[in-house]
């Protein structure tokens, strides 16, 4: 079934017949030619997008070849990043990225879940939910460099004050600070996706829960959350992908130190912020290609996340239909 339909589709794309409705169409008719050209242009633009992504991948691989050949898999295990002796290992930045983004996710999760529950379940309209919705949308529109700026002049002094209180070395910058900034940045994404998913839950199954005497908390816990699970997971994945790739805000508050992070409050570097810091200063070929290899890793991670998120959303839409 699927195979024949695929064949038909390919036939449709390449077919010279513009469609069953076009009963005046004949070869040689000028409209026929225009339609054919128009369809080809549309098709080519679709192909160009596909090739754009393919070329991005190929160029990243080609340009990181010197570093892949030189370091091989050790690139991901070595702790030293030394432009002078040209020894490059990405482990500190992989660790920094994982720490900051997962911590950010952990911090943001209760907030974004609350927002999506509040907007999708508790109060769908009204002054406060309108206010909340607009704030979230605006929060999503603030450029990341402004978040970084805010972090530099507000968050860093606060964190430094806390560090002095708890007797830790008062850097102010570091993993903790950038996680907080990241968590503020990713709340709007997971919240708005979560809200959409929760709003889609059919009213009758919730009402069935209420008619059995459940409280709202029980309905949310037993019906809403399980039903919206895959959508919420997709939102979390998208938020995580964004946190991993976020550059500017992190660069401004993480402290940019190329060593293995020692703790929650120590300065570090993420993969993205490393590229932002060193790309224009990289002189040697191997340094540049190591940075590009880190870019390749980021590309692969984000691609996997996008595809996984799509699968989760797809799964949700199937359960919704059947």
């Amino acid at each position, binding site marked *: 079934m699927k195979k024949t339909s*695929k064949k038909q589709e390919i036939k*449709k*794309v390449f077919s010279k017949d*513009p*469609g069953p409705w*076009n009963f005046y169409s004949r070869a040689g008719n000028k*409209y026929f030619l225009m*339609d054919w*050209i*128009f369809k080809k*242009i549309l098709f080519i*633009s*679709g192909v*160009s*997008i*596909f090739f754009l*992504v393919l070329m*991005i991948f190929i*160029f*990243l691989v080609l340009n990181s070849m010197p570093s892949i050949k030189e370091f091989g898999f050790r690139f991901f295990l070595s702790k030293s990043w030394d432009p002078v002796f040209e020894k490059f290992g990405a482990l500190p930045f992989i660790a920094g990225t994982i720490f900051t983004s997962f911590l950010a996710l952990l911090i943001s999760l209760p907030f974004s879940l*609350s*927002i999506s*529950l*509040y*907007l999708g379940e508790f109060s769908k309209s009204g002054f406060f939910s309108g206010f909340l919705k607009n*704030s979230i949308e*605006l*929060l999503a*529109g*603030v*450029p*990341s*460099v*402004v*978040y*970084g*700026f805010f972090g*530099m*002049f*507000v968050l860093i002094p606060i964190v430094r004050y806390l560090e002095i209180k708890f007797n830790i070395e008062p850097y102010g910058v570091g993993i903790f600070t950038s996680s907080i900034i990241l968590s*503020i940045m990713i*709340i709007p994404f997971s919240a708005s996706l979560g809200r959409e998913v929760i709003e889609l839950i059919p009213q009758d199954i919730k009402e069935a829960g209420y008619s059995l005497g459940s409280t*709202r*908390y029980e309905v949310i816990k037993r019906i809403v959350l399980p039903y919206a699970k895959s959508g919420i997971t997709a939102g979390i994945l998208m938020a995580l992908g964004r946190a*991993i*790739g976020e*550059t*500017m805000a992190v660069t*401004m508050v993480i402290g940019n130190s190329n060593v293995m992070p020692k703790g929650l409050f120590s300065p570090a570097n993420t993969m*993205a912020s490393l*590229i932002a810091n060193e*790309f*224009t200063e990289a002189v040697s070929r191997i340094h540049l290609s190591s*940075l590009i290899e880190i870019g390749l890793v*980021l*590309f692969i991670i*984000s691609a996997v*996340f*996008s595809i996984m998120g*799509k699968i989760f959303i797809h799964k949700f839409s199937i359960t919704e239909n059947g």
Partner: protein
Amino acid sequence: MDNKNISKRIFKDRIFTVCVTFLAFIACLPLLGILFLIIKNGASSINLGFFIHLPKPVGEEGGGIANAIVGTFIVVGIAFLIATPISLLTGIFLSENRKSRFSEMVRVSIDILSGIPSIVIGIIAYLWVVKPMKGFSALSGGIALAMIMLPVVIKSAEETLKLIPYSLREASFALGVPYYRTVLKVILPTGFSGIITGVLIAVARIAGETAPLLFTAFGNPFMNFNITKPVNALPLLVFNYATSPYEQWHKIAWGAAFILIIIVFVVNILARMISKKWKVTF
């Protein structure tokens, strides 16, 4: 079920409601904080000279960010000119071929493209444009931003065009209008507001992007209209001045952040007004 159990459940429910409401509103605080700080610090450093002067060296009073404002418009303009036609055509292609295997492949590539971190897009623009041209340029910045803009506009165009009912195009076909004219004169104008909204949202997003400009547009302390030369842009200027150690530059950065946020918000609000006023409804 005894009474105590029920009141316990109701109590739990109340606690839960309070927690959710509380957490939801706590999350708004950072936004209000950011807005408040930027308005407070930014508005004070803005005057007419801020818009028409070039930046002055450290130590000299005054100076403006005219070059960054012009640069932002140049770079965003280039991105707009490159991305809009391609994404419109692709959006039409996807809405016309909804179920083919190939358009599914294109959809997956669009998802991947929209997920690529902007810094990686910067690397690509560096490899594709800066390296062959042997120098940073506004053009490379525009191309980098265009790649970020593409998926946003394609998705919104596709979603809008999908909503247009089939009867409209059948009516057009019944009048003997050829396919390409039906698309260009019936379907596109009907979905115009949605497409404009998507373009505006994408423009608002790329206007604030910094990472892809770091090694493409690069920044330039002087006014520049030549697209093969480096230009400054507002987000780049905010980044460079905010990370500098000079108090005076911080003040300029606040002002620039203020203008940047106003541009982004105005474009966003415009987009929402357009989508509300000329919504595609059937």
